[in-house]
């Protein structure tokens, strides 16, 4: 099959691939459902993370700005959705109002973070963004007094699911004779959103802005000398990345029906960053791969460890839960050891790395 693909005309190869991918994407929730709806949920989280990782990829991968507080924007989006579509304030706005609004507010926060940190580089930027993420989380955790805005650590319950007229994403319904469960519906929504963010990423990569980001990433001084307005371009990276985080947050809110600050810890930022780097910074398929792997791996290990230990030793020697995170950490170390540019780096990056090794 591979040979055929290679011999075909460019557009034919292209469409064959697209069709195949589309077929697989449509099939996934139904195949996963055979193993239980839990797998559909896991798939959903994987796509949500793809979305987040691609958003962060704009900041880290393209513009080279190390952001350890990306989860802040995710949190902002989630809380915007939660506050405007729950009994907390008695507001129940439709999702097509809230999701863009969440993106806009997250974008604003992105600029807010970007502005004072423009002068910082590398690791200083990392610690400031990390601090920013913590600041947002701490505020969400504590803004229940004197005025109850976020309901503090208790979180916000009974958040509306995404709903179009009477068609709710939370319930099972039959469409054209096909039964779709709630998680399966969210799957298709998430896939649509992921395609959107992939398209934006692809378009940005080779645009003027994308090249400007790349220039800043490689050499900021030179970029400035070439007439690139580094301030605006950097702010734009933060703003774009943040907007995607905001949208992801909104969908997360709707899917979970409950948000509380503990979902937006530093570990979450680190996980998203790990997806980007592990997969291959700045390379879209790589980032997608990283996100899928890091979401799926702990789950696979959850189901795999106990039977494996039973098979080898005849009994469980170490608690499977402790081993799971251990293997997860080891996998990260090993991948970086043997594929320092990530599992699936862009060809350009691979070349650069090969050169630097000489």
């Amino acid at each position, binding site marked *: 099959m591979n040979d055929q693909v290679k011999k075909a005309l460019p557009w034919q190869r292209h469409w064959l691939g697209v069709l195949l991918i589309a077929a697989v994407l449509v099939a996934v929730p139904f195949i996963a459902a055979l193993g239980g709806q839990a797998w559909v949920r896991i798939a959903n989280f994987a796509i949500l993370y793809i979305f987040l990782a691609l958003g962060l990829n704009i900041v*880290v991968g393209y513009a080279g700005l*190390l952001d350890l507080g990306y989860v802040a924007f995710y949190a902002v989006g989630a809380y915007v959705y939660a506050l405007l579509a729950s009994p907390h304030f008695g507001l129940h706005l439709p999702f097509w109002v809230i999701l863009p609004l969440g993106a806009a507010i997250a974008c604003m926060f992105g600029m807010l973070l970007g502005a*004072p*940190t423009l*002068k*910082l*580089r*590398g*690791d*200083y930027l*990392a*610690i*400031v963004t*990390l*601090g*920013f993420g*913590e*600041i947002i989380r*701490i*505020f969400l*955790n*504590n803004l229940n007094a*004197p005025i109850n805005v976020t309901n503090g650590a208790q979180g916000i319950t009974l958040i509306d699911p995404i709903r179009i007229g009477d068609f709710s994403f939370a319930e099972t319904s039959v469409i054209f004779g096909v039964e779709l469960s709630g998680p399966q519906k969210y799957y298709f929504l998430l896939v649509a959103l992921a395609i959107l963010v992939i398209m934006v990423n692809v378009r940005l990569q080779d645009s003027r802005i994308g090249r400007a980001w790349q220039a800043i990433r*490689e*050499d*900021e*001084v*030179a970029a400035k000398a070439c007439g690139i307005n580094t301030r605006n371009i950097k702010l734009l990276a933060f703003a774009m990345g943040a907007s995607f985080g905001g949208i992801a947050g909104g969908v997360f809110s709707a899917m979970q029906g409950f948000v509380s600050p503990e979902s937006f810890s*530093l570990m979450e930022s*680190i996980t998203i*960053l*790990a997806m980007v*780097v*592990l997969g291959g*910074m700045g390379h879209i398929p790589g980032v997608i791969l990283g996100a899928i792997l890091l979401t799926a791996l702990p789950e696979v290990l959850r189901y795999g460890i106990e039977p494996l230990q039973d098979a080898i030793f005849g009994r469980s020697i*170490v*608690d499977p839960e*402790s*081993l799971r*995170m*251990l293997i*997860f*950490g*080891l*996998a*990260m*170390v090993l991948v*970086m*050891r043997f594929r*320092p*540019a990530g599992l699936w780096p862009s060809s350009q*990056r691979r070349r650069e*790395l090969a050169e*630097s*090794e000489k």
Partner: protein
Amino acid sequence: MDTLLQQLINGLTLGAVYALVALGYTMVYGIIGLINFAHGEVVMIGTMVAFTVIVSLAGSGMPPLLILGIGLLVSVVVCMVLGWALERVAYRPLRGAPRLTPLITAIGMSMVLQNVAMIIWGRNYITFPPMIEKHIYTVGGATFTNVQMAIVSLAALVMLGLIYLVHRTRIGMAMRATAQNPQVAMLMGVDINRVIAMAFIIGSALGAVAGCMVGSYYEIAHYQMGFMLGLKAFTAAVLGGIGNLAGAMAGGLLLGVIEALGAGYIGQLTGDFLGSHYQDIFAFIVLIVVLMFRPSGLFGEREGDRA
């Protein structure tokens, strides 16, 4: 006034611990520009090893101070080996890799160490046996213990030793040369691999000392204790100007004092709008403000704009 004095004492003790841990970050960063995120876990392992040694020797009839000394020594040695192994296995192969690669390795390593510690020492909180009989002194309405005094003086001693090491010995000179320019240092006959390994080993030894201090001060240990401690210490290192030894010390002490005063007075400063729940924010806001005006930290050298 006695409250202010007390808060300063609280802050200085905490700051001394931060400073020691921050030195570990800064030593490594100063030489190869790597944030060793797993350093907090090294500190945790240090506490745990000391705990095991102390508990197993507790019944032997040796004087408590000797037991504590042995515990400290063993934990320093174990951590040195651990630091060396970390560098050798995880980081050395990544030299010349993209900047973020070792960062992810470090995060992975910290997860590995945490979970190994959980398998060995269990998931429960551990009571660190107090080996120094606690005496409480009261001066001007403020109290402090002999443990606190020991911590601050030991920290000061270790720091002085480190400064001597870096500025007066051959290996220290080699370190500074490598930090300046690894290639040139190599041409001048410096064994870079050895120097970098030394930085990890010394940093980890300092971490072990800090771990024992945390253990004897708070008398509690847990396999996840390294994470927050590491994070705070890292903040301290950046605050002082990462890569700069004096900066790490100053940053650590400053962060400790900021946290104590922040928690104590943030309510009064903001008319009770912000309470002690914003303690951590206070530290980060100071950090952001400092970095806005001095982008390389308080004591960091002004870096030229180079890529």
